[in-house]
Structures are given as structure tokens and as C-alpha cells.
């Protein structure tokens, strides 16, 4: 019972990170700051949610699947963040050149 | 010793679907053999359709529960006289169109992909004709719709692309409406088989909305006025054999399904019949006026399809509004007659364009080249479309008018007559041009005026012209297995 509260607390903490990331996406001034907010905060948020869910589920199989999901999302977010940033920087340079 | 194959023991029901499907795949994988694979698929499908018709004529009412699962869970394919008539129409039209295509020198672009697309279209249409499951019918219509769009773009012009996009969007909208109706029907009745739905339809409050959604979706796919806006451009901008397929055959599938649902499953109310009649009358007037104004031959033929679909819808409405009139066989005869005549017309028009080099009606008589046979086919088909005796069109209109007279429905009669007069008007614009061809003389003997590719449209036109003599046989076939009375495949 008390353990359940711990897991729920983790999920709640994860949601707070998600909310912070979204707030950053909406409020930060330029693309790079927004990317920064999204990739960092959301990855941590997802990790906390996944951890909490795994605890509530309490089977090794579920925990393993959640770990794989988190790892794949984290890698994809990092790569897509990198691709977007690289693309944006190139577009910037081209504008400067003009 | 010849091995004995018991033909009666073979289950023919899936042959008209699977044979063209396999032909399409063979033609897609081996583009060089596309023509051979296509004709083989059509031929095998014809054998299956003929076998099913033979069974229907003996009164066998063939049906197959696919995978052995009975309704309401499984899907049943079944055939009655109505099914057989449309299977045969498909056989005749696709063999004629396929032969023309095989005899015509292939155009440079999209040559090979024509065959797999056409065979998928045939598989979809035959599937719709045979199916007795409403969701299955939806899927077969989507197969036909996507294949038809692929065929419609083959000319490659921007106009054809634009027309195909509108055609596809109209078809998608129709499909989504049908899907909503199916959802509502399943919500209320928990089943999808037409026979089962026939027993319970109308008992739930949402059935009215479900009916409206499905019929509206089918009307959109069949280009029923005022949902016809996509048709003229789509049909007139395609290659001639494709126009023939789209106009003569593809439109018939949603009309066929609507007839099955309207008369066979849902108890049609008088008011809804009147609505159909009004829509039909609008289509006759609008389509005819546009055909009278059209400057190009193919556009004229396409607008005449709008008007003819209106006439068919008028016949539907009459049979729904006045059950005493029993005009549904008239509606079906008109559909068959229109299928034969319109295919002949579009193909003949295609040949005329090929010979003359353009299809501007006003200048058709100023060419030194004379596509004589194509003109003859066009004229024969026009006579059937107008409905002079002894054509099949005459047989259809006779039944329609007899029904109207019997039901004292004079307004309906007047509309049918007006449609006939208008069709005389717009078709004679073309025929008069044919007769005045002597205004320009070319070098005699330079061109013979006909090729082998004139054969199939001529055959179709002669069939449309002469089939009226066998109208009693056709009506007898339609009545076999008591379609629309009690649906085949009904499992108690």
C-alpha cells in the first residue's frame, strides 16, 4: 500500500517534468531553447512515469518492456532533436550568407 | 481416358472474384505478360460467372459461407437472377473492353499497369455483386474505387489528375458515410448480413439515419443528382476504354447495392421513393441540358450518363413509391441497357477521336477520314439509349412506363418521356454530323475507315440493339431465385 504511493508519486513527478517541458516548448524564445526543454524534461519525465508504472505492474516482463520503450524513445528523441537542430543551424547559416 | 470432373461439385462462387485477383497479381509481377494474364483472368472469371448463371437458371440459388462460418458471424456469397445479370454484364463489357485494349497499339505511358488495375476493378465489382454482407460490400466497393481512380489518371493530363482527385474525394466521402451507417446498424442490431438485417431493419430509432447515411454514400458513388458534380470530368478525361468501364460498369455497382438495400432489406417508405424520383427528374433535366450544350463528344456522352442515372433513379423511385407498379425489373433492364450502350458509345467515341484527331462536335463532319464502323456503332448504341424498339433500352422504358401507367403515376410517366425526348435532342447533334460527312472528301482508298478494334464496340452496340428481342428471357432470369422478395442465403 505504501509502496503503491511511492510508485504513484514517481508518476506524478514524471508528469510534472512533462508539464515543465511543455511549458518550455510554449514559452521559450527560440527553437534551440525549445528543443532543449523538450528533449531533456520529457525524457526524464518519461523515465519517472515508466519507473512508476513498472512498480505498479510489478512483473519483470512488464518492467523489461517499459525499459525498452523508454530507451527507444530516449534515443529517438535525442536523434530527432539533433536532426532538427542541425537542420535549423544550416538554415540559419544560409540566411546569414544571403 | 478423360478424367471426369464433376462441374456441379465445384464451388464457383468465389471464381469471379479470385480469378481476376490472381490475373491482376500475375500482370503486376510480370508486366510483360500483363495482357495475357489479364485476358486469362477475365476468361476464367467469365467461366465462373457463366457457371453461376447456369446454377441460378436451374433454380439452385447457389450460396457459400466462406470458411464454413455461417452468418451472422461469417460472410455468405450468394447469387440470384439479379446477381447473375450483373455478373454477365461485367463479363460482356470487360471482355469487349479488354479485347479492344489488346487490339489497340499500347500508348506509351501506363501501358502495363492498365491490366492489373482493370482486373482488380473486376474483382471488386464481382465481389460486390455476390456479397450478402454489408461490411464486405463496403470493402469490395473500396477495391473498385481505388482501382478506378488508378485507371482514370492513365491519360496523364493535368485535367485527368484533377478530375481523378475529385472522383476519389467523392468516393472517400461516400465510403465514410456508408461506414457510419454500418456502425449505426451494428450498434442497434448486432449483425451485418443482409438477410438478418432485412428481418429487423426499421425496428430501431437509429435505422432511419443509418439508411440515409448509407444511401447518401451510395448515391455519391453512383453520381446521383445533385451529387454528380465529379462525374463528367472524370469520365470524359479518361482513356476511351476506361471511360467505358467507369460509365457503363463502375457506376452500376453502387446502384445495384442500393437496389438490394432499398427494396430488399429496408422497407422503403413512399416519401423516400418520391425523393429518389425528384432527384432522378433533376438529373434527367440537368444532364440532358448539359449534354445539349457540350462542345466535345466525350463530355456529351459523360453528361448523358448523368441523365441516364437519373432515369434509373426515377425507376427506383417509382418501384419504391408505388409497389403495385413492380418497376424494379424495369430499373434493372435500364441499367443493363445503359451499360451495353454506354460502353459501346465511349469506345466508338474513342475510335472516332483516334481517326479524326479531336472530338469537337461542331467540326466532326470536316474530316477527310471517316471512321465508318465506329460511327455505325455509335449510332446503334444511341438508338438503344434513346429507347427505340427493338432495343434493350426500349424494353426497359416500356416496363417503366407500363408500371407508371398501372400506378396512375402520370408525372413519373411525363418525366420518363421528357428524358427520352431530350436524349433524342442531344444524341442527334452527333448523328447529324455523321450523316453530313461528305462535306470534305479525302483521297479515296487512302484509309479503309475501320480497324479490328472497331469489332468489340460494334458487337456491344449490336447486343444493346438486339437484346430487346430477348427481353422476356432477361426478365425471367432477373426473377430467378426471387431476388428482393426473399434474399438468397437467408439462414434462419
Amino acid at each position, binding site marked *: 500500500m505504501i509502496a503503491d504511493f511511492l510508485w504513484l508519486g514517481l508518476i506524478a513527478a514524471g508528469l510534472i517534468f512533462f508539464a515543465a517541458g511543455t511549458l518550455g516548448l510554449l514559452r521559450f524564445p527560440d527553437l534551440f531553447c525549445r528543443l532543449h526543454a523538450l528533449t531533456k524534461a520529457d525524457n526524464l519525465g518519461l523515465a519517472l512515469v515508466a519507473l512508476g508504472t513498472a512498480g505498479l505492474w510489478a512483473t519483470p516482463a512488464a518492467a523489461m518492456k517499459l525499459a525498452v520503450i523508454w530507451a527507444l524513445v530516449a534515443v529517438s528523441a535525442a536523434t530527432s532533436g539533433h536532426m532538427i537542430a542541425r537542420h535549423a543551424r544550416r538554415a540559419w547559416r544560409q540566411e546569414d550568407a544571403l | 481416358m478423360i478424367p471426369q470432373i464433376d462441374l456441379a461439385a465445384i464451388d464457383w462462387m468465389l471464381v469471379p472474384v479470385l480469378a481476376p485477383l490472381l490475373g491482376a497479381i500475375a500482370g503486376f509481377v510480370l508486366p510483360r505478360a500483363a495482357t495475357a494474364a489479364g485476358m486469362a483472368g477475365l476468361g476464367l472469371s467469365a467461366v465462373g460467372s457463366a457457371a453461376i448463371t447456369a446454377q441460378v437458371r436451374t433454380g439452385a440459388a447457389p450460396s457459400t459461407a466462406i470458411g464454413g462460418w455461417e452468418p451472422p*458471424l461469417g460472410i455468405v456469397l450468394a447469387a440470384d437472377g439479379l446477381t447473375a445479370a450483373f455478373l454477365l454484364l461485367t463479363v460482356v463489357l470487360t471482355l469487349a473492353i479488354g479485347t479492344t485494349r489488346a487490339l489497340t497499339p499500347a500508348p506509351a505511358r501506363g501501358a502495363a499497369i492498365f491490366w492489373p488495375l482493370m482486373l482488380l476493378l473486376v474483382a471488386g465489382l464481382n465481389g460486390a455483386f455476390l456479397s450478402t454482407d454489408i*461490411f464486405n460490400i463496403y*470493402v469490395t466497393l*473500396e477495391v473498385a*474505387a*481505388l482501382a478506378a*481512380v*488508378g485507371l482514370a*489518371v492513365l491519360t496523364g493530363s*493535368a485535367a485527368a*489528375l*484533377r478530375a*481523378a*482527385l475529385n472522383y*476519389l*474525394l467523392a*468516393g*472517400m*466521402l461516400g*465510403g*465514410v*458515410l456508408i*461506414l*457510419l451507417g*454500418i*456502425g*449505426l446498424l*451494428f*450498434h442497434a442490431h*448486432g449483425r*451485418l448480413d443482409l438477410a438478418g438485417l432485412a428481418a429487423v431493419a426499421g425496428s430501431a430509432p437509429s435505422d432511419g439515419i443509418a439508411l440515409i447515411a448509407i444511401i447518401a454514400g451510395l448515391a455519391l458513388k453512383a453520381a446521383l443528382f445533385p451529387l454528380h458534380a465529379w462525374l463528367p470530368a472524370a469520365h470524359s478525361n479518361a482513356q476511351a476504354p476506361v471511360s467505358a468501364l467507369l460509365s457503363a460498369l463502375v457506376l452500376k455497382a453502387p446502384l445495384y447495392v442500393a437496389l438490394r438495400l432499398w427494396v430488399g432489406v429496408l422497407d422503403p417508405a413512399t416519401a423516400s421513393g418520391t425523393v429518389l424520383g425528384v432527384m432522378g427528374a433533376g438529373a434527367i433535366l440537368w444532364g440532358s441540358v448539359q449534354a445539349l450544350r457540350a462542345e466535345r463528344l466525350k463530355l456529351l456522352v459523360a453528361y448523358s450518363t448523368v441523365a441516364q442515372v437519373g432515369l434509373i433513379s426515377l425507376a427506383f423511385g417509382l418501384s419504391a413509391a408505388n409497389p403495385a407498379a413492380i418497376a424494379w425489373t424495369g430499373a434493372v433492364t435500364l441499367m443493363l441497357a445503359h451499360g451495353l450502350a454506354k460502353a459501346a458509345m465511349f469506345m466508338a467515341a474513342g475510335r472516332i477521336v483516334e481517326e479524326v484527331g479531336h472530338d469537337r462536335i461542331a467540326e466532326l463532319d470536316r474530316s477527310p477520314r471517316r471512321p465508318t464502323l465506329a460511327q455505325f456503332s455509335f449510332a446503334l448504341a444511341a438508338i438503344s439509349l434513346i429507347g427505340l424498339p427493338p432495343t434493350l433500352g426500349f424494353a426497359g422504358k416500356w416496363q417503366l412506363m407500363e408500371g407508371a401507367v398501372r400506378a396512375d403515376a402520370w408525372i413519373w410517366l411525363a418525366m420518363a418521356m421528357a428524358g427520352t425526348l431530350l436524349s433524342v435532342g442531344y444524341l442527334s447533334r452527333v448523328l447529324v454530323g455523321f450523316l453530313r460527312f461528305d462535306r470534305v472528301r479525302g483521297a479515296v482508298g487512302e484509309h479503309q475507315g475501320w480497324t479490328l478494334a472497331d469489332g468489340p464496340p460494334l458487337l456491344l452496340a449490336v447486343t444493346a440493339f438486339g437484346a430487346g428481342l430477348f427481353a422476356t428471357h432477361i426478365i425471367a432470369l432477373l426473377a430467378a431465385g426471387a431476388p428482393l422478395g426473399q434474399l438468397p442465403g437467408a439462414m434462419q
Partner: protein
Amino acid sequence: MTPETIYGATGIALFAIGLYHALVLPSALRRIVALNVASVGAGFVMVIAAWRPGGGADPVPHALVITGIVVLVAATAVALALVRALHDADTTETDDTP
């Protein structure tokens, strides 16, 4: 109020929103998106038809909706290919005529 009424109303509303916009929006691309929204609405009606309070949903409508989704994505892909081809045709036309 039950999930059935909530999502049933949502389904019908989505269908109406999609239908209306498919008829009036001025760009083909957007009409395609509107048709997808309408189709989701029809999907909701079927999912509602399958739902049972307390679990144990009817698998048949689920199978139908999956089929509907696949059919619609096929049609959408063809429509979008037409949009691209029309764009190309217009581009080449304007290139030809100075």
C-alpha cells in the same frame, strides 16, 4: 452519463465536423484531413457498439474498424499522391509559359 454516451456523442460530432469541412474547405489537402476526421467519428460509433460495461467487448466491430482504418489510409495515400502530381503538373505548366 456513461462512457458510451460521452464517446458516442464525440463520434457523431467528429463525423459532422469532418463531413462539413470535407464539403467546404478550399484546399484538397485539408479536405483529405477532414475525411480522416469523419472516418474516426464513424470508428467511434463502431467502438461504442462493441463496448460493454464491465469489459468483454465485441471483437467483430473492432476488426471492422481496423479494416476501415487500413482502407482509409490506402485511399488517403492515393489522394495525396494526386495532390503531389497536380502540384508537379502546375509547376511544369507555369515553367513552360513565361
